[in-house]
């Protein structure tokens, strides 16, 4: 497969170590160099199966921090790994459910609720991708998908609604994470789970913006779209607040550029309007 100069046996052996280190018991962010190796592996070999197997054999379920870090790894692999990772992830729902079930009510370090909420978000994400296989894991903007949706307004309407449901779920999950910050403690591990959420929410936001604009261009009956527009507006304000709060977290802004949304939602009827970048 790979056109890169690689060695499969070596890659497998290293992957085991990468997974182990990425899900270590220290209450820190999963080290990006190890997460990156997992992502690169899925592209080299067009498979994520060894990663799922690796996660299963690690004794992570007895430790809430390790479980939470494993979920961050899973989320990032689903986002940035080869598309096959999403398909193969759909076969892992029972393991994910086990993660949510095993942790005691709130855990000693307070990760219980976060783990359950993370699992439920990942399961929703997997369901979304199952019914909309044309999207990649980060919802990166591709014009053709938005055009495909508006050829059939009913399908477009449904897709936007599904995207908005996912966006709402990110919103409630991120609020829960902020609510679980501990004063006087290092919140790096919790903050690191916001990184993939910022990226994903922004990809979804961009998509919804461009799809809704296209729908407005195509339709004669704008009243039909009104419910979507008012929901879009309210999501804009929530997202703006979310990014503002993230922009105050120094650890996070050192890793990614947090988007800055305008005071008011963009005008969806302005057909020439650029998609935010």
């Amino acid at each position, binding site marked *: 497969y790979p056109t890169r100069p690689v060695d499969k046996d070596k890659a497998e052996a290293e992957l085991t170590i990468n997974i182990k280190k990425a899900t270590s018991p220290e209450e820190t962010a999963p080290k*990006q*160099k190890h997460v*990156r190796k997992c992502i*690169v592996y899925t592209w080299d070999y067009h498979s994520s199966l060894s990663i799922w197997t690796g996660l299963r054999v690690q004794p992570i379920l007895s430790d809430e921090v390790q479980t939470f870090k494993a979920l961050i790894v899973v989320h990032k692999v689903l986002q*940035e790994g080869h598309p096959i990772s999403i398909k193969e992830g759909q076969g892992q729902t029972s393991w994910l459910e086990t993660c949510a079930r095993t942790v005691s009510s709130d855990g000693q370090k307070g990760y219980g609720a976060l783990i359950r909420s993370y699992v439920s978000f990942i399961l929703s994400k997997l369901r979304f991708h199952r019914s909309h296989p044309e999207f990649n894991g980060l919802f990166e903007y591709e014009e053709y998908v938005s055009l495909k949706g508006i050829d059939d307004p009913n399908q477009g309407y449904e897709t936007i609604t599904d995207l908005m449901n996912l966006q709402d779920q990110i919103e409630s999950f991120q609020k829960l994470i902020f609510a679980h910050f501990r004063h006087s403690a290092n919140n790096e591990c919790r903050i690191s789970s916001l990184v993939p959420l910022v990226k994903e929410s922004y990809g979804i936001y961009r998509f919804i913006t461009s799809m809704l604009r296209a729908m407005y261009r195509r339709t004669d009956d704008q009243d039909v779209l009104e419910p979507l527009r008012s929901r879009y507006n309210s999501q804009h304000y929530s997202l703006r607040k979310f990014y503002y709060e993230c922009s105050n977290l120094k650890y996070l802004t050192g890793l990614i550029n947090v988007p800055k949304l305008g005071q008011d939602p963009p005008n969806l009827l302005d057909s020439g309007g650029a998609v935010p970048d």
Partner: protein
Amino acid sequence: HDSASSFKTATQNYTKGYSDAQAKVRDATSNDPWGPSGTQMNELAELTYNQQDFVEIMEILDKRLNDKGKNWRHAFKSLIVLDYLLHAGSENVVLYFKDNIYVVKTLKEFQYIDEDGKDQGANVRQKAKDITNLLMDESRLREQRRSRAHMRDRMLGEGP
């Protein structure tokens, strides 16, 4: 090149049996604090038009890009060289890195804080972002390669 690290690179080039082209990439992307020179990059760009050299150069660039945090300069300087090769090297460089874009893309979250607490990863992250954007923008890449070739022809007095 009189520093100990240059000497080490030179010794390794010899003992590990690196080819001339590979030794050139290793020199251009070493841990020395100064950047790869224009001459070095230009030479490498020329070499990518030869299939054998091309394969050897890609092998070392791949290794350097995947190096550990402490060697952030390897990754950073490899990205600088890559940027140059995408503009002035053979079409094969473009094809290879479009195919393996994830190697660059996943460096957008590269992390390394040095002993003095300075965030050296930021250099790598920014450069990885720029190159990813370039690789995904087919028309911009084409345009930049064209205008570069045009300028080069003019400077050599061969162009139209």
